[in-house]
Structures are given as C-alpha cells and as structure tokens.
C-alpha cells in the first residue's frame, strides 16, 4: 500500500509481515472479545511468532494451544463460530490443513448453503504456504487454486505487510469463512503498516506498477519477483502493468480485463504448479471476456508439475524466478 494513501493522521511504521499480522490480530482481539485463536503452539507465539506474547494479554482461553488434532482444530473452529464466536484457526503450515479437509471443504465451505443461510461460519483459517528454506514436498505446497474453485470460501493471498494486515482485519470481521494464505517466504519482508489497521476490501487488486506493454498478474510470494522483473524489463524499455491480485476469490477481474485490453499481452505468474493453477482461470476468463482477438499473446508461468524437492539446486530449477518472468515477458513481446 502506498503510504500516501493513508489518512494524514495515521501513524505508520515499517514492520515485518509477520509483525503486521500480529498487530492485526491483537487489534481485533482488543476490539472484539469474541475473537480468539486456536492452533498448535499458539500460546508459545506460533512457529513464526505470529502470536508472540498474545497469551499474556488475552490468556489461554483466547490464545488456545491445542493438541496435534488438525481435523478438530478446524472443525472446532467451525463449531465455535456457529454459537457466535469468531475463531482464528491457525493451521501452522498449509500442508497440515490436508489433515482437516473434510472439516474445511465439506463443512466450513458448505454449511451456510446446506442449511439455507442459518449458519454463520465466521472463521478465518490461517495457512502459511509456499516454498521456504528447503522444506521439501510436504511443507512447501501452494494449492490456493483449489479453494478458488471451491464454493463457499474467500481466498486471501497477500504479499505485503500492509495488505496482510488489512486483509486479516477484513477476514476477522467477515461473516464468510476466509482462507488466509500467509506467504511464508515473505514473513520477514518489511513495509509500512499503520498503527490502526483498516480492513482492506476483498477482490481489489493492487496496482503495483503502471506500464503499457505487458500486463503481469501475480500474488503472494511471487509479487517481489514480479516487481524485480518489471524493473529489469523497464530498464530494457518494456513497460509492465503489474497487478497483485491480493485475493483469488473474489478476484479483481475488472482490473485484469482493463489492463489486458490496453496492453494486449498477458502474463500470469504464480508459485503453484502451472497445470490446473489459477493462472488458467485468468487467461481463460480474459479470452472469454475480451475475445481472443483482443490479445496478441498470453502466457502463464508456474512450477512444473512436480512435488517440491529438498535439494537447493533442484528446488531452484523448478522455482518461479525473476529471470523466468523476464524471459517469458521478452518472448511475449516478440509475439
């Protein structure tokens, strides 16, 4: 978020993304006594420090360290929402949410619908996702596309401290269940965050950079790669219109359509596997809406369809990087 957009009285500090989310949680827990957190080790601060010291302020009934029982962490969060509280369900890392998919997919995402609007599953599920420190196949997945496909959830994929904080506040206040993907690799990234965090609306892309030659759409950990690539391309005289989607459902179709209609070249980049990733949705949607003739070229970059390997050169080989984005952009410009 551009600091100049903030109200002039707001106090803004530069802090890390993890600290920004902690500030958001603390603010909301102070505001609403029905907001609480459940997950493994959260009373010890969470494994990334997202909840550091919060137990001191809010006590062990609101910062609840749980057994290693993901299914019940998820399902209990739902149950607690059904009686009117507002739980933040901490999954530790996304991959462990796979131990709780009935609760997430069959229950949380559907309960409002199945019961004809009676249920209010006002939960936030926090799921730090993506590559981080050679964590290998079971601790590195990016499956956000699954949940954009799944009716019933809001899907947040922030990339900056301010966006993470703003979207988390919005998620906590939302009556819809929100699956909030913390970008593991960016927990340490810094940026300006106001003392008082306002909710950020879902479905509004951040226009990171303007340019006329190419529309570059990305989210989560890939945004910094995209920014660096855009800078590099600019040095070559290629103007990149860079959009950070911030949420995948709802997603800012209007912003993408407007940009693509203008630049006529579309590049969608995500850390997740390309095949079946959300990039396909974006390209297909743009083609459907604008007609194929509106575009000169479109392409996606994502990981190849491989589990994530441990060894650094292997991980590096399949990782989405600035260099791959730059190369793809150049080839698109040739088209």
């Amino acid at each position, binding site marked *: 978020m551009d600091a100049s957009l903030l109200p002039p009285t707001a106090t803004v500090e530069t802090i890390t993304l993890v600290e920004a989310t902690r500030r958001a949680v603390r603010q909301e827990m102070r505001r609403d006594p*029905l907001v*609480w957190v459940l997950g493994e080790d959260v009373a010890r601060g969470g494994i990334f420090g997202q909840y550091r010291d919060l137990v001191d302020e809010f006590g062990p*009934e*609101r910062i*609840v360290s*749980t*057994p290693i*029982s993901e*299914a*019940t962490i*998820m*399902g*209990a*969060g*739902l*149950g*607690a*929402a*059904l*009686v*009117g*509280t507002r*739980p933040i369900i901490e999954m530790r890392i996304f991959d462990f949410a796979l131990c709780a998919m*009935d*609760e997430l997919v*069959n*229950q949380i995402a559907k*309960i*409002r*619908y*199945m*019961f*004809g*609007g*009676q*249920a209010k599953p006002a939960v936030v599920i926090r799921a730090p996702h993506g590559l981080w420190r050679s964590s290998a196949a079971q601790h590195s997945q990016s499956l956000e596309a699954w949940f954009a496909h799944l*009716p*019933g*959830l*809001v899907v947040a994929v922030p990339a900056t401290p301010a966006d993470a904080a703003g979207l988390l506040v919005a998620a906590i206040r*939302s*009556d*819809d269940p929100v699956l909030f993907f913390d970008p593991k690799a960016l927990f340490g990234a810094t940026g300006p965050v106001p003392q008082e965090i306002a909710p950020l609306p*879902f*479905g509004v892309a951040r226009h990171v950079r303007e340019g006329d030659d190419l529309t570059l759409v990305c989210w989560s950990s890939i945004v910094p790669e995209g920014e660096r690539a855009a800078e590099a391309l600019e040095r070559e005289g290629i103007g990149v219109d860079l959009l950070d989607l911030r949420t995948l*459902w*709802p997603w800012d179709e209007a912003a993408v359509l407007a940009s693509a209609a203008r630049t006529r070249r579309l590049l969608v980049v995500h850390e997740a596997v390309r095949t079946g990733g959300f990039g396909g949705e974006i390209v297909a949607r743009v083609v459907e809406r604008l007609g194929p003739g509106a575009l000169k070229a479109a392409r996606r970059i994502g990981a190849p369809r491989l589990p994530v390997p441990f060894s650094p050169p292997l991980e590096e080989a399949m990782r989405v990087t600035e260099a791959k984005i730059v190369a793809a952009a150049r080839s698109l410009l040739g088209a």
Partner: protein
Amino acid sequence: MARLMELYRLMARIRAFEEVALVAHAAGELPGYLHPSIGQEAVAAGVCSVLRRDDRITSTHRGHGHALAKGADVRGMMRELFGRAGGACRGKGGSMHIADFSVGMLGANGVVAGGIPIAVGAAQGLRLLGSDSIVACFFGDGAINRGPFLEGLNWAALYRLPVLFVCEDNMVAAFTAARSVTAGPGVVARAESFGVAAESVDGNDVEAVAEAAQRLIACVRRGGGPRLLHARTYRLLGHTSTDEAAWRDPDEVAQAKANDPLVRARDRLLAAGVDGAVLDAVLAEARVEMEAARADALQAPWPEPAEAWEDVQDIGAEPVEQL
C-alpha cells in the same frame, strides 16, 4: 406417568414423521433418499427431552428424530425433505442436512462423525460466551472408528468442555455389522481411555435414556467436563429408504421388533393403567400431524431457481446466471 406419556408422544411423532416421509418417498413425492431412524426414537427423545432450548445438538445423516425432539418445526422439516420453499434449509439441504438453529439444532451431517468436531467447538464457544448451555453430540456406532471421534474425546476432556457424547449403537454401519469392524471392548472403553466417564443404557427404554442423560447432563452443566452415553438400540429398517437390509438375520430383526421402543413405552403405560384408546389417539394424532405436514409440503411451491445462487457467501457471491 405424565413424563413417560410426553416421551411416548414425542416418539410417536418421530415415528409418524418418518413413516409418512417413507410413504411419500415411495410415492415419488420427495427427491433423493432418506435415512430412517425407526426403532431408535427413544435415544433422540430421551436425550433431547432433558435438554434446554438453548442447549445445542449436532446430529448425523439419520437426524430426523434428533431435530424433531429438539423442537424443530415439523412443517419446515417436511418441506425440506420435499425440497420445497419454506423448508428448514430453503430446500438446499434435504433430509441429510436438516438444521434448525432457532432451537439449537446445529445440523444433521452427511459425513459420518462430521458433527463431532463441530460439537466440541460449539461447547468451547459457549464457554467463551459465558453461557451454561451444553452440547449433545449424536453419532452412530460406526462413527467411533473415525479419527475425529477420538480427537473429539481428547479435546473435550482436555478443555473440560460441556459436551454429552451420545453414541447411538444400532448394531450396524450402513450394510456391515458394526461389531465386525470395531476392535476391542467398544465405545465406553474408548471414552474412558481419554478420561471421559461413560455409561451404557438400554437405548430402547426411553425413560432409562432420559434418566441417564439427565444425570450426565447435570454433571456436564456443572462444569464436570464431558460425558458419554452409550445407547444400545436397533435400526429396524434398512440403511436408506431404498435398502431392504435383506442380509440381516430374520430372527434378530423379529426380536428387535418385539423390543421396539414405542411398544415398550406403550406396555409400560398400559401397565400403569393408561387407557389403550388414549395411546392409540396419541399415535393417530401424530399421524394426522405428519400427514398434514406432508400435504402442506406437497402443495408448497418449489423454490425459485435463482435461489440456488443465495446463501453462498456475502462477498464474492456469483451473479445469477441467465436462467
């Protein structure tokens, strides 16, 4: 006797509700399929009769009895089974997803054991709210082999949550004898291994169920932590409305019929001097009530197609398509 009479009436209404629904199903009046609880009414009736309105329950795929016993609106339920406007869930859930939050019925569930994590979480939420409501969590004997049951026991015991677990042991899990896929002494031992005190009850004796439930709920409400009630009963019909359960031992079924909870309650009431005609009238009234609900459902309009697009999300709801 007044209490038993009330329980008899409640069981009769559950029985009539399902019998009428089954007739309607056979007549092609209602879509999908049903999981009847005929023969198991004493568990739902006994437990729910001692709950407060502000207590909550979670239920199973076989949840008509639980819903009705907790006080759900019968016409809303029947319309839901018929998929009609005015259904408890606006026609979106059907039999397997009956819910009535206004009376604390937090929903049937199409996933075996799916209600258990929800129940313990609801109890935890109630604690946070400072409420003294409790949660009764119904599940079948087949559900005790799913992980969430065991996680839920640990969780409820750990946080001393106000939950009454109610295992409806009808001896069967879909088409397989539950015993044949369940190792060890059973649900009571499992509960106790988590420090959850548990007891078994004759689940076809509605008074015994109510009495045991009342006793256990008193402990639970006092902050004594969770309890488990193991109710032995029998599923008199098949797994669903289209299943004959023909593989079962006919002797077993015959014996179970003699042990029908309605028959037993009736015998007891007769023995206590209640006039048979009074009891017949209870049955007849229940039948009339449910036939009226059926007629109401049959004449109710279908939901508007565009309603399919409602109740998904506040934010990010898709616009209604050209229909």
